[in-house]
């Protein structure tokens, strides 16, 4: 089990200060927005890469990738 400084990342002080001034809901909202952004980026990428795929197949592939293969 590694416990050296290289293993334990710490957020930048400036960013920590930014986040400290946000509400819990705002912090959660940022995190959930990351998921939405990832979903949209993946969908756009797959639509361009596989124009022959229908919407259902595209959604399945996005879901598979985002879930690390869980679905």
């Amino acid at each position: 089990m590694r416990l050296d400084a290289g293993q334990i990342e710490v957020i930048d002080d400036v960013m920590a200060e930014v986040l400290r001034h946000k509400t819990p809901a705002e912090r959660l909202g940022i995190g959930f927005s990351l998921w939405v952004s990832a979903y949209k980026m993946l969908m756009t990428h797959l639509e361009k890469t596989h124009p022959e795929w229908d919407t259902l197949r595209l959604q399945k592939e996005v879901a598979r990738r985002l879930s690390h293969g869980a679905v």
Partner: protein
Amino acid sequence: MEPYELLQDIVVTLEDLQIPYIVTGSVAAMVYGEPRLTNDIDIVAAVEEKHIPGLLAAFPPEEFYISEDMIRDAIRRKGQFNIIHPASGLKVDIIIKVDTPFNTSRFTRLKRIYPSDSFQANFAAPEDVIIKKMEYYREGSSEKHLRDITGILKVSRDEIDYGYISEWAERLGLAEIWKAVMDRIGRNK
């Protein structure tokens, strides 16, 4: 479906069924610390056999994957089961509440938080999120747990009860990890 919607769906269901619960894991870590991409919503809940029909009704098979057998097995073994939204890949991991001193403590200390304007939810307190993440790190060595811990400590800083964490770290055999984290953020100087 997006994460907020799934979080609200599960929270409303648990409260309607009067199932004691706390949101924990990376979602709770984001509330107190640093946002990050996550696909899972982790919830510790005191689910019993009598709750199964309500859970199945709340998450219909047309939209969700939820297995009655898996729920029963989780209850029997005091394990966990999933509620999966296949169309989005989003997942809720329901961990069955076990009666331990730590669980008693963290359920007592839970915080009622507005994840959004439209609903409230029970979240594990930041100290308890940290303690549990240290346990997960010891078990699996995923550095994301350490990043979540330091994120909470840096953002929620003066709101954290460091003595409480130290006490439970000793009780749960996590003192080495806790010391390393405190050294890293400069609080042991």
